[in-house]
């Protein structure tokens, strides 16, 4: 089985972004960039499936600027076999990314696509489901457990009320939730090895996909600030404040 794992380069999760003063977006100059954490979990899961003998080849894909090559090298250091960058300076939105991935699926014929459930920059939570729809494949979102069989996958999903298990005939799309696994640390020898793995660069035009923005960002602003309240000296004061001032208990 061949697995395709799309990865996104995002602002590192430890960085608190600042809104630009002209309201045109957030300032990401000189900010640390990393692989979207959920995508890292997706790569790790694909590698584990390969280590278990359930997968033969793992292809990492990223859609974005040239610097996404670093993200793809990281994916290959975790264990992806090769990588494809769909290079574009237009920040492709989820529908465009889903279409680019659809075109790559047609070329590469993977039986499984594993993605992160959402990217931590735009917080959209759309691409996996959109890709499944475009391909007309089954989907299992928010996966916390994946069991691969010869012609199907059984996936446990994190839902609001607990867990749900579905079985999908292959090919299928899965999106990874937090508890699916804990990604391994990337070791230096694996980073060196990843540098030698093949990385193909293509672009949206070659794939015949229009990545034009469908949703226009009118402005980006700071969220309403919540001012810090008071520190209370002891439990008795806290209870008094909650009863008499806030009147919530």
């Amino acid at each position, binding site marked *: 089985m061949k697995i395709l794992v799309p990865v996104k380069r995002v*602002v590192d*999760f430890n960085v608190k*972004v600042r*809104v630009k003063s002209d309201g045109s977006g*957030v300032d990401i100059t000189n900010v640390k960039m990393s692989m979207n954490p959920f995508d890292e979990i997706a790569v790790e899961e694909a590698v584990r499936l390969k280590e278990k003998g359930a997968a033969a080849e793992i292809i990492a894909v990223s859609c974005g600027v040239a610097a996404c090559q670093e993200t793809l090298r990281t994916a290959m250091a975790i264990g992806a076999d090769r990588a494809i960058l769909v290079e574009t300076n237009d920040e492709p939105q989820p*529908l465009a990314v889903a279409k680019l991935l659809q075109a790559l699926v047609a070329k590469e014929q993977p039986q499984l696509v594993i993605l992160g*459930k959402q990217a*931590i*920059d735009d*917080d*959209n*939570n*759309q691409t*996996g*489901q*959109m890709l*499944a*729809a*475009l391909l*007309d494949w*089954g*989907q*299992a*979102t928010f996966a916390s457990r994946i069991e691969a069989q010869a012609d199907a996958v*059984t996936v446990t999903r*994190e839902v*609001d*009320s*607990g867990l*749900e*298990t*579905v*079985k*999908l005939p292959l090919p*299928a799309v899965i999106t990874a*939730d*937090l*508890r699916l696994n804990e990604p391994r640390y990337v070791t230096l020898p694996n980073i060196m090895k990843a540098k030698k793995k093949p990385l193909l660069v293509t672009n949206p035009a070659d794939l015949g996909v229009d990545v034009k923005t*469908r*949703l*226009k*960002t*009118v402005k*980006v*602003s700071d*969220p309403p600030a*919540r001012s*810090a309240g*008071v*520190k*209370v000296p*002891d*439990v*008795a004061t806290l*209870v008094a*404040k*909650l009863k008499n001032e*806030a009147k*919530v*208990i």
Partner: protein
Amino acid sequence: MSVLVIAEHDHALLKGATLNTVTAATRCSSDVHVLIAGYNAADAARQAAGIRGVTKVLHADAPQLEEQLAENIAAQVLAIASNYTHVLFPATAHGKNVAPRVAAKLDVAQISDIIKVVTHDTFERPIYAGNAIATVQSSDPIKIITVRTTAFDPAGHGSAAAIESLPPVADSGKSVFVGREVIKSDRPELTAATIIVSGGRGLGSAEKFTEVLTPIADKLGAALGASRAAVDAGYAPNDWQVGQTGKIVAPNLYVAIGISGAIQHLAGMKDSKVIVAINKDPEAPIFSVANYGLVADLFTAVPELVQAL
């Protein structure tokens, strides 16, 4: 110009998230229809018909809609989507699962997690874990939207709207429901609770998490929540997770115990009306959003609090 709300329900009962989504829908149009796709879901349909602002309920009933599989529900929505200018889902696990499938099939962008309807085509939504608010405008003929339920008040009761039955779509065969593990609890549901007691890594172990937090939650009649760090460490189940990638909550009172306040956690709870933080680290970021902060060892302060309540 009609808009469609995709109801969340368990066939017998309409889920609260539907009511907030209807409120968001009424900001887009005065003609709001609700789709109930389910099995033996006449009760849920009746409840939907009684929501103020709803003008019609469409009810599709079939065994293949029982487990709410994304492939089948999306197909049911697509069967009628072209009659509408907006299709709104609650931004719950279910809504997030289905909505993008509908959007992609219609070849339109999706607007996720809206917190405000500015005009019929312009919406506000949080990005970067709520550290920025984007105002986005859609030029697509049909707007597929998920609604952050905490940002809209629940719609009240109104006079009963008509219920029309819809032919159900066939089973897609692309996924098969195997089973469900629902955690039974006497506590209020996290996203619907008026008081939430939430614990973080400061609790130190799963045993302490339960031992310290259960009495105070019982006393307050509160739901229990957890930070991602606590879930990661195995102190609490994932469906208790509050934060950017967990549940978004906005109760009247949120009591954060042993939670440092990482931005990912604040993203999920900072719209709570009153926030109390108990943490021994006076520099913990949680204090920057708390109305009342108590710098103390939680293992002595919380039992004391239980006594004092």
